[in-house]
């Protein structure tokens, strides 16, 4: 008796998922069993009528790609509306990276499974230039690659390497955070990492090849030297003429000319580096996920400098386009104290007392003062004070019989405070200086960015033809306009507060100082209680 294979086996045979041995035995059976052979033939015929005609498929490809080519003018903004967590992603990491701990001489391989390929060595890929920075042991090889196939090769290799390699992983592996946070840690990287970064905004790829030289401590120099270089694992340039800090990690932007640093315009939680010539423009942005928190860089109180960073977090999905913005303000303080501390020590701080002319010219400080003064005659003193306010080119904000709040030009603040102190016996005096430079610059930049976005949207509005798109764009424009107006209002308020200092004076008559003696014998302060004889009732208890 012949046992015919089941339909399941036939089906698996046709799909090619039977084991080799079973396939052999099945084919041996087919050779001698015409019934089963016929069954397979019928099923193959059925398969044939399921096959799509090739020329049809080719036509589909051609038509689709032709239409995609036409649609290639899709605006960047549209592309930005993506849930992709990082816009500029590191596509590949090639090479073997070792991290060596100088303290115990132990080395670990940073990216096991992602072996250095033959030909991928320290030499720049496809030519390029080499820049070795200072004495901090960070060499940066900037290369260009336009070879897309090598890019994808790299990506494929990285994906073969196992777990996804993100910028955060690289950062973690290189220990850069630790290196920056504490100079006691001496991690050195002895090898090279080739990192391919794809910039979706300008549709180009760059290869960055960074070599950390062995036996070099990557200790950041925290002091702000006169030439304005802040170096370390994270390289930055400080420009005292405009008070900006530029740079960022080991990256260079090459835009046809010599490699140069690009300013960081926002750092937390992502580092966003823009083209140096287009600080707030939306092109040439790099966004690195979970990048270094620059706050750690400024946590060194022993330095004679104080770096202050401010930032505006980019809206995660700000409709059309990202609202990015931040400013970096740098101030030096010879007293190693923060501006507010310095202000409290000096009762009448003026811009002249600030340490560095180059930076302090740009400082924006809101000065406020409050006085409580004992005077012989409140009315006379008040009259005197009001006259003086006019003399100081100030104006009265609020006033009653004993209290006056007035504003004077910030330039006169010091003189006004001194003169007010001489009005009588000062029982209370509070002078405050609030540094709003950061806030002001933040606002300025946010306005600038929002206006750029609005302009771009207006341009888009003209091009849009779908009602849905039009509505979306109009909504976004409305939202941006409101935001711009609000920001401008805030900016005006801040500017006004900086230009005019606010001083509040509380005048009290000296005679009123003596408080009425407490009535004896259980008598009340209130005459009507005394009249009804309530004290007699109270005494009985």
């Amino acid at each position, binding site marked *: 008796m012949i046992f015919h294979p089941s339909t399941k086996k036939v089906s698996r045979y046709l*799909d090619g998922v039977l084991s080799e041995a079973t396939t052999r035995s099945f084919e041996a059976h087919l050779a001698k069993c015409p019934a089963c052979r016929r069954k397979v033939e019928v099923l193959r015929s*059925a398969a*044939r009528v*399921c096959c799509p005609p090739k020329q049809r498929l080719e036509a589909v490809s051609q038509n689709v790609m032709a*239409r995609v080519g036409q649609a290639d003018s899709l605006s960047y903004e549209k592309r930005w509306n993506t849930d*992709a967590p990082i816009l500029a992603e590191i596509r590949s990491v090639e090479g073997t990276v070792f991290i060596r701990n100088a303290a115990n001489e132990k080395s670990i391989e940073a990216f096991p499974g992602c072996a250095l390929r033959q030909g991928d060595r320290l030499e720049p890929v496809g030519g390029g230039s080499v820049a070795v920075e200072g004495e901090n042991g960070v060499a940066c090889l900037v290369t260009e690659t336009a070879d897309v196939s090598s890019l*994808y090769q790299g*990506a494929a290799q990285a994906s073969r390497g196992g777990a996804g390699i993100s910028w955060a992983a690289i950062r973690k592996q290189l220990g850069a955070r630790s290196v920056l946070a504490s100079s006691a840690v001496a991690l050195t990287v002895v090898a090279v990492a080739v990192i391919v970064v794809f910039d*979706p905004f300008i549709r180009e790829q760059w290869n960055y090849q960074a070599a950390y030289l062995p036996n070099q401590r990557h200790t950041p120099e925290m002091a702000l030297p006169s030439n304005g270089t802040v170096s370390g694992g994270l390289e930055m340039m400080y420009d005292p003429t405009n008070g900006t800090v530029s740079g960022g990690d080991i990256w260079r932007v090459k835009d046809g000319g010599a490699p140069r640093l690009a300013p960081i315009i926002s750092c937390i939680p992502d580092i966003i580096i823009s083209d140096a010539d287009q600080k707030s423009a939306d092109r040439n942005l790099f966004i690195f996920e979970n990048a270094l928190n620059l706050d750690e860089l400024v946590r060194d109180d022993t330095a004679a400098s104080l770096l202050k960073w401010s930032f505006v977090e980019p809206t995660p999905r700000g409709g059309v386009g990202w609202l990015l913005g931040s400013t970096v303000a740098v101030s030096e303080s010879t007293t190693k104290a923060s501006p507010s501390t310095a202000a409290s020590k000096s009762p009448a701080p003026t811009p002249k007392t600030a340490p560095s002319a180059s930076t302090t010219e740009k400082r924006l400080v809101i000065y406020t003062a409050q006085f409580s003064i004992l005077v012989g005659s409140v009315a006379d003193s008040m009259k005197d004070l009001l006259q003086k306010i006019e003399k100081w080119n100030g104006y009265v904000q609020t006033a009653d019989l004993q209290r006056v709040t007035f504003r004077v030009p910030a330039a006169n603040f010091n003189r006004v405070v001194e003169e007010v102190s001489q009005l009588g016996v000062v029982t209370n005096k509070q002078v405050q200086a609030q540094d709003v430079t950061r806030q002001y610059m933040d606002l300025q930049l946010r306005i600038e960015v929002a206006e750029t976005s609005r302009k771009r949207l207006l341009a888009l509005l003209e091009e849009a033809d779908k009602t849905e798109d039009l509505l979306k764009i109009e909504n976004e424009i409305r939202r941006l306009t409101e935001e711009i107006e609000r920001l401008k209002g805030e900016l005006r308020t801040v500017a006004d507060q900086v230009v005019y200092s606010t001083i509040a004076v509380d005048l009290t008559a000296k005679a009123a100082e003596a408080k009425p003696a407490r009535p004896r014998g259980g008598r009340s302060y209130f005459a009507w209680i005394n009249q009804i004889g309530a004290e007699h009732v109270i005494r009985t208890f």
Partner: protein
Amino acid sequence: MEPRDGLPDETVVRSVLGGDAEAYGLLVERYRARLFGLAFHLCGDYDTAADLAQDTLVTAYECLDRIKDPRTFAGWVAAILRNKFRNLARANPAPTVSLDQMVAAGFDPPNPDTGPAVAEQELRQAVECVWSLPEIYREVLLLRYSEDLSYKQIAEFLGLPVTTVTMRLTYARRLVIKKAKESGLL
């Protein structure tokens, strides 16, 4: 084989979102056949199937930034096609399928090694067999042969477990054999 061919959908989708429109060609090559197969299963007409597959791929490109998880591109693009067909089917009832129609629309039977006269008759009956199958079985069969797809690829495309796909393929073939016996092919 180009190195790019091996890239996962997710990477390619991100590349396209990043501005590399050419990378979309990879996805088109990868999905055109199965989209065509699914469309043909739904509408039973090569012309409409080609249009549907084409429109689906263009729509997918234009709306690529709306995909929630680039890893699920296969299921996402299949859902687009189904929606498109649903909109189309409201206006046009599904036509009946015959070998003549298919040949007229460009059907080219591969490997006609059993002789032209016999093959044509057999193919004619095979078309009838396939198109008399319940939809769920016809679907997997058409997808299986739209190109050399694995069970896993079919499962991802249809959003089904692999075991279900395997089982449906077996049942589909069992039904084809049953129909063939009824029509005298076997």
